């Protein structure tokens, strides 16, 4: 090949498989060649000879020799990913797309709104924020899951609650005996967010239904459309805007996203479907 072959995966070794919830596992792997990514970019994760699926790494972007992705078991490929064990060989392509424009966030007040497996990309983003936390005016994290058992990175998030540079609240759709926090969807824990909404940044990542109502709520609060960042999930495959599958209006999620400013895609059809 005269040019770099974008379809070829980097051979990687599974270092650890962490069970997060009943249907989410985190795969820690070491690529043969280090993979540098910007937080918000995604990779194509493949099981050799079986198939590929896109995931946004949930690990520290500063670390390129060991990466992590958190995978919910939802289909053929993810079911097989869940069967991976330490020492297994996988393939990684990427990173692809645009990450979060961190420089744009400096000096601003930031609200991060996450739901369910949206915590995976957001953990990587939070690491990036923690690394520059002195440069953020304020940082809020508001996250929700279906039930207390569905939270990713539970222990780690407990430690976030101790942080001075973060204001965090969590909620569940349906509580249980152990849950002492708020019960309700994530938009019900936004009243305690105190900032100048007109100049603040809102970052949303979660399942489509949460994104839809989250975006609506955040707009009502007074955030500006071009200060809202959405992480879009479409059927990304080639990663370079050629195969066509992840088109959203005049964009390809893989090449022009997956992180979009709301005003860029607000008129796209099928945006929340």
């Amino acid at each position, binding site marked *: 090949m005269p040019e770099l072959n974008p379809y070829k995966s980097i051979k990687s070794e599974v270092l650890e498989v962490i069970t997060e919830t009943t249907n989410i596992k985190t795969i820690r792997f070491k690529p043969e060649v280090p993979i540098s990514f910007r937080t918000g970019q995604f990779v194509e994760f493949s099981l050799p000879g079986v198939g590929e699926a896109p995931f946004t790494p949930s690990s520290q972007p500063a670390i390129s020799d060991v990466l992590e992705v958190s995978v919910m078991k939802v289909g053929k490929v993810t079911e097989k990913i869940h069967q991976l064990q330490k020492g297994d060989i996988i393939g990684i392509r990427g990173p692809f797309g645009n990450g979060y424009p961190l420089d744009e966030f400096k000096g601003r007040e930031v609200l991060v709104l996450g739901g369910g497996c949206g915590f995976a990309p957001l953990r990587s983003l939070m690491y990036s924020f923690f690394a520059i936390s002195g440069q953020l005016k304020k940082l809020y994290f508001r996250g929700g899951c279906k039930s207390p058992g569905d939270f990713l990175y539970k222990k780690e998030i407990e430690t976030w609650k101790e942080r001075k540079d973060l204001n965090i609240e969590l909620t569940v759709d349906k509580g249980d005996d152990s849950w002492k926090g708020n019960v309700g969807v994530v938009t019900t824990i936004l009243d305690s967010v105190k900032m100048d909404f007109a100049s603040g940044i809102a970052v949303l990542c979660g399942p489509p239904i949460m994104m839809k109502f989250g975006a609506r709520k955040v707009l009502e609060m007074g955030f500006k459309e071009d200060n809202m960042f959405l992480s879009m999930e479409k059927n990304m495959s080639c990663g370079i805007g050629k*195969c066509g599958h992840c088109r959203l209006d005049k964009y390809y999620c893989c090449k022009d996203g997956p992180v979009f400013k709301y005003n860029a895609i607000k008129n796209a059809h099928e945006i929340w479907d």
Partner: protein
Amino acid sequence: MEKCFLSNTDVGAFLEKLSVRFDVYFPVKKKEQRFYKKFESVNDRPSLGEVRPFEPLKAFFSRARECVAENFSDPAPQTNPKPIAIVGVKACDLKGMKVQDFVFLNSGNKDPFYARNREQNIIIGADCTCAIDTCFCLALGVRPYPEGGFDLNLSQVADGFLVDTGSEKGKALLGEFSLLFKEAPESSIKERDSQRALVFKAVEENIKKFDVPVQEVFKGIVERNFSSGIWEDEAKTCVECGACTNICPTCHCFLLYDQKDKDKMERLRVWDSCMIKDYARVAGGANPRKKLWMRLRNRFEKKFDFFPKVLDTYACTGCGRCISACPAKIDIRKVLRRLVANA
């Protein structure tokens, strides 16, 4: 006068000489259709006039099925490294290549496989010498004779072909095979003009006969009709075969899929179709286009909304292949007519 005439008796010799350095392909006629065939001998009977062949030109560059990776490495190199020369390419397919080139070469990362197939190739165009029922190129601003995008172009006249040069590569070919090219007979230029006018008229008559709207009125037709019942109505007979997209000179979508046997694993790139149910489905089952009519609408959105936005062109060439390929008789001309009428 320039030596720009290839006589009928020299066509075979020209193709033969070309085949030393290139894998040469040209259309041959089988019953009512034309199909590309690889040059074998001077006795081949190329059909350089008439209209576009059955296969879209893209098939030479973005192959219907191609191995793009093997075991974390590049695929084994091809055994036959000759570049391709395609002779007899029609204007509609040349417009299709504008779209293909944009996607695979000029929009973001280059696709190395397409680039390799496209590199060093020779494209020799040819005027259409007639129109068939499904031809409506003029509606998309394409004339039935190549006006660019070729290395050489052949215009059929009595006894031979007038040859136009479209690139430095084409010019070099004329020089290389200069013994085969003669001075054009004076009458031939007039002859070409009147021949072109005849075919132009034939396409115009098609457009009138089938009441095809022209691209000047296409702006916003998909957006304005997004909620109309036209899509559901037109998709009623669709059997989701994907013929319309496979046969389309502008459609470029593909599927990457992995397979393995005992010794190796392969990643294949195969043509895909946005008409197929799972095309946009994400893991977990969410599918923005569950219904067939949504996928039909999406196909039109891609052609008549997306490409005008990113490339300033409608991704249709008026070649009419999708009309003849569709087992459900969905007719792009009729859909366009309804969209325009309902605007």
